[in-house]
């Protein structure tokens, strides 16, 4: 039993996550989500999320320990998402983690949320190749990361310059009259549709954009194009082919995501691509990424959907890697940083 037992806390958005990881083994991942409370507002309301985190914190810690069959007193270290994320939501998790660290007398690791999305795959598919290319896509982020060492060396190759991919899914779902969160509903509707029915724009893929924004993404123009197309149909009094719009929109998103990710792998000589974040649950993204990776000779890693969305296990997994590699712990006065840069893996 030499491997460290780490408790990880995640509260950067609307999920209160508490995970327990021993070394590279996931013991339990407990999640309390406030997504249903947000659904009636059509998006995440920060104050609602913060209140929910506070209420869920201790019950979620208790449940994680009970289900994992461990006692809090056996925990060797506590890790927590220090940023990026919603400021008030992050603060609840960071304060809880500090209190646990203080009470249990164990080290505290304040970690980067994006790094944790990459690190979580260790518990699913084993040690990360070094380097790994990370494509993180969710309602809050769309990033391409070159990851030589997930515990302390991450380089940002590109990111969205406007909306996150998941945000575009939510907004287009709204235009199509589909519920929040939009991702799963669009994915389902798209299965009945034709992905080449409508030629929606692929952001930042033109010649000049590929020079200035080679690995950046943009989904705002696409979202607007979909809204205009739907409005024009409605203005003409014609029915909106929801399945075709969903399929064509989704294709435009996953085409750009995977094209740039595979290009980044080739140009940086990286043989392994890891996709994480909530949008990684999208079936078309997985299929197209697999197809393109196979063609380019790249190994694709995608954690199971429950580990792609925000969760405590990913924070615990990264914390455990840091303990194992002997990284320094954080100080008890570490701040929550809502705009923490990805290069700052540990606070």
């Amino acid at each position, binding site marked *: 039993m030499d491997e460290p037992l780490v408790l990880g806390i995640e509260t950067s958005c609307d999920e209160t996550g508490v995970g327990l990881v021993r070394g590279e083994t996931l013991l339990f991942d407990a999640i309390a989500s406030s997504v249903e409370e947000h659904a*009636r*507002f*059509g998006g995440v*309301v920060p*104050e*609602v999320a*913060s*209140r929910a*985190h*506070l*209420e869920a*914190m*201790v019950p979620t*810690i*208790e449940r994680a320990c009970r289900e994992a069959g461990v006692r*809090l007193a056996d925990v060797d270290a506590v890790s927590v998402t220090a940023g990026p994320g919603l*400021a*008030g939501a992050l*603060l*609840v998790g*960071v*304060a*809880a*983690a*500090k*209190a*646990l*660290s*203080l*009470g*249990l*007398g164990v080290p505290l690791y304040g970690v980067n949320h994006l790094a944790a999305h990459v690190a979580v795959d260790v518990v699913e598919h084993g040690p990360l190749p070094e380097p790994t290319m990370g494509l993180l896509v969710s309602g809050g982020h769309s990033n391409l990361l070159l990851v030589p060492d997930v515990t302390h060396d991450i380089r940002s190759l590109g990111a969205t310059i406007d909306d996150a991919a998941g945000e575009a899914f939510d907004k287009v779902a709204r235009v199509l*009259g589909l519920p929040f969160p939009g991702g799963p509903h669009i994915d389902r509707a798209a299965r009945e549709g034709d992905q080449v029915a409508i030629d929606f724009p692929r952001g930042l893929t033109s010649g000049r954009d590929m020079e200035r924004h080679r690995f950046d993404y943009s989904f705002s123009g696409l979202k607007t194009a979909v809204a205009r197309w739907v409005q024009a149909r409605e203005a003409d009094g014609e029915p909106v082919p929801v399945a075709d719009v969903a399929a064509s929109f989704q294709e435009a998103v996953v085409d750009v995501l995977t094209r740039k990710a595979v290009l980044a792998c080739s140009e940086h000589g990286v043989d392994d691509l890891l996709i994480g974040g909530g949008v990684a649950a999208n079936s078309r993204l997985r299929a197209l990424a697999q197809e393109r990776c196979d063609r380019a000779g790249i190994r694709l890693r995608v954690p199971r959907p429950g580990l792609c969305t925000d969760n405590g296990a990913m924070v615990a997994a990264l914390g455990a890697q840091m303990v194992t590699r002997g990284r320094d712990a954080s100080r*008890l*006065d*570490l*701040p*929550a940083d809502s705009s923490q840069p990805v290069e700052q893996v540990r606070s």
Partner: protein
Amino acid sequence: MLLAIDTATGIVGAALHDGERVRAEVVHHDVRRHGELLAPAIQEALREAGIPAAELTAVVCGVGPGPFTGLRVGVVTALTLAHGLGLPTPQGICSLDALAHQVMGTHEGELLVATDARRREVYWAHYAVGPTDARRIAGPGVCADADLAEQLRTLPTVGRGAELYPDAFSGVALPDVRDVRPGALAELAVRLRAGDHPDAETALLPPEPLYLRRPDAVEMRR
């Protein structure tokens, strides 16, 4: 050994009380960095008193009302620390009660507590202060300074509300009581828990923030 923390006003801090007296009190005057300052303040208080965290037997926290972000840092810290140490669930105390408790010995009679609720509003509560205890008569509430009843606004006042809105509050501001001192919260908590206070039955609250306001959000219509 009881740990008391409060983050509802302009002080972030922690105090330790052994049942007889306050053994350590560490405070920071900063309303923006609760998340950074509170845990180290607890650690410092423990160090000052020379006891390990494992020797704590109870945790109490001020539950406001106060600005939400800081308030939550205090409450979640109390909850998680108590859970981590295997202690009973912490008890909450209205932070304004602690402010009223702080005037004992310097003031007797009616008292208004008014603190900064931001957005041009105050959190308030009305007290009767006697020689040995301060009892809440009305509140806590939140409203714009001018919406508070005239007979309350002319009372002697503590908290930062009166100095923020001097036009509305014409009562004497008692100068030395502006923010909740965790040591005072600890003293009040020890008396309430011992039943040594006329409001012992009612003043100990669940460890939940007294938000008094609903989240700002507009429901979607379809």
